[in-house]
């Protein structure tokens, strides 16, 4: 279970403090799939980062009693001057997963060939996306945090990611943030709408979609 209790986040900017999230509450159980809808700049990525623990809330608590992935967003999570393979080794070490068994999977899934042994900064954005996704699938989590998956990749790679996430890992919990209502409707059991820094949770997806549409 993940429970988010009275979480607020304030960022310091040049124009003074800016409150991005205001007193957010949410609970996710094992196997549950929750969608979070929000416009650009509504604070979706911030919320996902707080849930992952990459950033800490200004006030409130995030409690995790299951393993939670880092935000899967096709970028970030690796270091540019290391090779793809060294990044895989780093991630395996950090999460305490054996390295050798993960290599064939990442080789096959990323289709990077000899580029896996080149520094990541030499990759094209498509290659980075393939590496990022392959790395995040190499570690087994109870809950995956997915940030705008729909945006990147050609259709064949998109299909592969879809299979890995929603078929191979269909019993896992997922939190998906998106501004695309159709995507949320297709994959989630419940949905919430993020607007003006507050989170509104709905039991039925359709209610959430209605609320989201009426915001615009």
């Amino acid at each position, binding site marked *: 279970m993940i429970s988010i209790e009275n979480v607020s986040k304030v960022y310091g900017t040049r124009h003074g403090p800016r409150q991005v999230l205001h007193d957010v509450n949410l609970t996710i159980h094992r196997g549950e799939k929750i969608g979070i809808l929000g416009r650009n700049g509504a604070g979706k990525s911030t919320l996902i980062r707080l849930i992952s623990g990459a950033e800490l809330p200004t006030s409130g608590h995030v409690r995790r009693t299951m393993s939670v992935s880092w935000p899967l967003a096709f970028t*970030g999570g690796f*270091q540019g001057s*290391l090779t793809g393979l060294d990044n895989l080794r*780093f991630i395996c*070490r950090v999460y*305490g997963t054996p390295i050798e068994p993960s290599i064939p999977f990442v080789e096959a899934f990323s289709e990077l060939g000899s580029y896996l042994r080149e520094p990541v900064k030499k990759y094209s954005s498509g290659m980075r996306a393939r590496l990022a996704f392959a790395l995040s699938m190499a570690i087994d989590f109870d809950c995956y945090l997915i940030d705008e998956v729909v945006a990147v990749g050609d259709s064949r790679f998109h299909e592969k990611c879809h299979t890995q996430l929603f078929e191979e890992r269909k019993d896992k919990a997922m939190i998906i943030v998106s501004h695309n209502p159709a995507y949320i409707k297709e994959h989630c059991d419940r949905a919430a709408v993020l607007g003006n820094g507050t989170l509104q949770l709905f039991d039925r997806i359709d209610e959430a979609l209605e609320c989201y549409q009426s915001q615009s």
Partner: protein
Amino acid sequence: MVGFVNAGFKRSLTIQARVIGALLMREILTRFGRHNIGFMWVFVEPMLFTLGVAGLWTLLRLGHEHHIDIVSFALTGYSSVLLWRNAVNRCNLAIAPNLSLMYHRNVRVIDIFLARLVLEIAGATISLVVLSLFFISIGWMSAPADVLTMVFAWLMLVWFSVGLGLVIGSISERSEVVDRVWHTITYLMFPLSGAVFMIDWLPRALQEVLLWVPMVHGVEMLRHGYYGERVTAHYNLAYFSSVNLVLLLVGLSLARQTQLRVEPE
């Protein structure tokens, strides 16, 4: 309840050890690479410098009136500088190149500092030990009088480096001024840090001023251990450890503050 807290603490320690191990490998790869002589630069660089200084001083015939051989004097002095200078330099601006790795929850600001500190401290220590053994074996240096005192002095200097590294590393994330000012301070501190003199050689008034500089106490103690009663060393362990304790506490609390401010890419 105690058992539970204990288990949580043990688990946290395991995770932190894992993360620091992973960061160490990452640092070694980007710092020394897979080409050239790689990791050996850790002690080849100080070796060249020590040889250079020893050569220069021999030509100028410095130190003879103090009945001290130049090679050992240069080695004990420069190794101490190397320890705190490199440890702090590597903490300076350490977060930015690792920001993307902080996407991973267990990778914390303090782990990045600790990984870099471990690497630099290991490098400086290997350099001191290897070079001492080498110079002793070829007869350029005599064996140390009291190894235990040297080890103690070295550990005090390590403590100082960790504290100062955490402080400079944390505040360098807040302002670019720190980076620029720190480099100037490093150059100024090199001659003042006790590496190129012994307090006893100096006039009384200067002695009192220089004994305010914390690392002077570490170097004096290190040389006391090496030369034994051949030199008169001036150091105050109470003063040095108080400074170290304050630096460490301030450093830890600043690192915690930095953790709250950090925003992964």
